[in-house]
């Protein structure tokens, strides 16, 4: 793992056998929790996350409410046992930042004006973490929000691109993230093509950045399809249950 020696490609494929523009396997299930208004369980590579949405509901504490629109709150949390070295319970600086950028990634699609003085609360729990938990959380939260019946302009979808061994690739796994040269999580509204989150760590040229954005957008489009499928399946099950 000394500088330059570590190599992330073998016969043109990545350590886990993927192509440069290939996502890790995903599994999305909507409506998995009984008490939440909407929920989603999502696996993406080694990530396992649960998202729940409550609301629109009364705001506590009261003085936080907004008279013209709903407030959106987003809490990203890692379970103590979701990482190799046990994490102390409670929010740390990393999860505070992720909660903020994730909320901002989702806020613009919510029709907040319809629910003044209320709160829409999104909770994301990471049960098992691989690289890319914030993207997995946003993807799950987006499905949970739709499952809760919150009116939205579109789903929000997220994935990351990065750079390893000088190559721009889609969706870093944990080892690639730890020893790679850059990591760029992106969120967007596939329906409109607008970007709603972007962060960057590491080193990239402007051209590499543009190349990576293309990969990320294509990745988001694929995930978007799976989000839609999960919601359709949930809806059909609900219909069946009613019969």
């Amino acid at each position, binding site marked *: 793992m000394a500088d330059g020696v570590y190599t992330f490609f073998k016969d043109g494929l990545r350590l886990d056998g993927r192509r440069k523009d290939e996502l890790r396997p995903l599994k999305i299930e909507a409506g998995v*929790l*009984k*008490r*939440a208004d909407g929920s989603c369980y999502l696996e993406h590579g*080694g990530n*396992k996350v*649960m*998202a*729940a949405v*409550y609301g629109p*509901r009364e705001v*506590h504490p009261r003085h936080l409410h907004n008279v013209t629109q709903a407030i959106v709150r987003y*809490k990203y*949390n890692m*379970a*103590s*046992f*979701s*990482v*190799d*070295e*046990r994490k102390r*319970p*409670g929010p740390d600086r990393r999860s505070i930042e992720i909660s903020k950028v994730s909320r901002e990634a989702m806020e613009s699609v919510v029709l907040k004006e319809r629910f003044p003085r209320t709160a829409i*609360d999104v*909770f*994301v*729990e990471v*049960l*098992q*973490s691989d690289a890319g938990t914030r993207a997995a959380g946003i993807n799950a939260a987006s499905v949970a929000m739709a499952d809760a019946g919150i009116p939205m302009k579109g789903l929000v979808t997220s994935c990351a691109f990065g750079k390893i061994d000088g190559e721009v690739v889609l969706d870093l796994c944990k080892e690639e993230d730890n020893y790679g040269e850059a990591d760029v999580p992106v969120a967007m509204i596939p329906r409109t093509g607008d970007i709603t989150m972007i962060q960057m760590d590491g080193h990239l040229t402007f051209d590499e950045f543009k190349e990576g954005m293309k990969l990320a957008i294509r990745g988001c489009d694929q995930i978007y399809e799976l989000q839609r499928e999960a919601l359709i399946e949930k809806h059909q099950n609900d219909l069946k249950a009613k019969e």
Partner: protein
Amino acid sequence: MSDNDILTEIYRDQMYNLLQRQERGDGRALDEYREISIETGVLERAEGSAIVTIGDSKVAVGIKMQPGEPFPDTPDVGVIITNAELIPLASPTFESGPPGEVAVELARVVDRGVRESKAIDLKKLCLVEGEKVWLIFIDIHMLDHGGNLLDAASLGAIAALLTTKIPNKQYDLAEEDEPLPIVDIPVAVSMIELEGNLLVDPDHIEEAVASTQLTIISNRDGTLSGMQKMGSGPISLELLEKAVELGIRKGQEIREKYLYPLMNEIPRL
């Protein structure tokens, strides 16, 4: 537990009516559990894990282990640290922030269940006397609060422990990882008291209506290893003794049906 809003009043009336015929809202017998499922080993970053559902309740338990310092007064035994979070994902009534009194009590009852039952042979977890022992973190994460989270958490804890591998290799302490030295299997059985009746495994509506809840923890040989009354309601001695008997009996059933099978996979004891 008891709450005074109108909905609770309506549920209370309904439950009282049903109880006249010894019935419950979902058709169960008074001493009947909802459907139970236990999945172990699903969370791969943990040394042991279990996801338990009881009816609408769902709890994830992860076990993490690492070498650390023993307590000064017990220099030659491993250390158990149990933590529970009633995260707001699981219920509209749970709030963010550090664990409140309900979460603290739940964690401590589960912890005493494991500790006092001597479920784990902690002497075998001493690495260097007075200096280094295994720390066992039992982290309980509520995912869906459909009532009786305590039994789900307790069941998750023992199921996760039964399937935990000591991470010897990670810390260069032995050639192979090995199972935890489990020597007993405590089971917690909770029930509420309503109008002189004991209702096992209450759902969250039954819990809201009742003002007395009891948890009975028992071992493989039918002895008691823990007990806790919760809620502000009183209970008669007669009913308390009935509850203890009932708790021991239901504990035995759960142990045989759900926990012995896990041990078949990892034969020991």
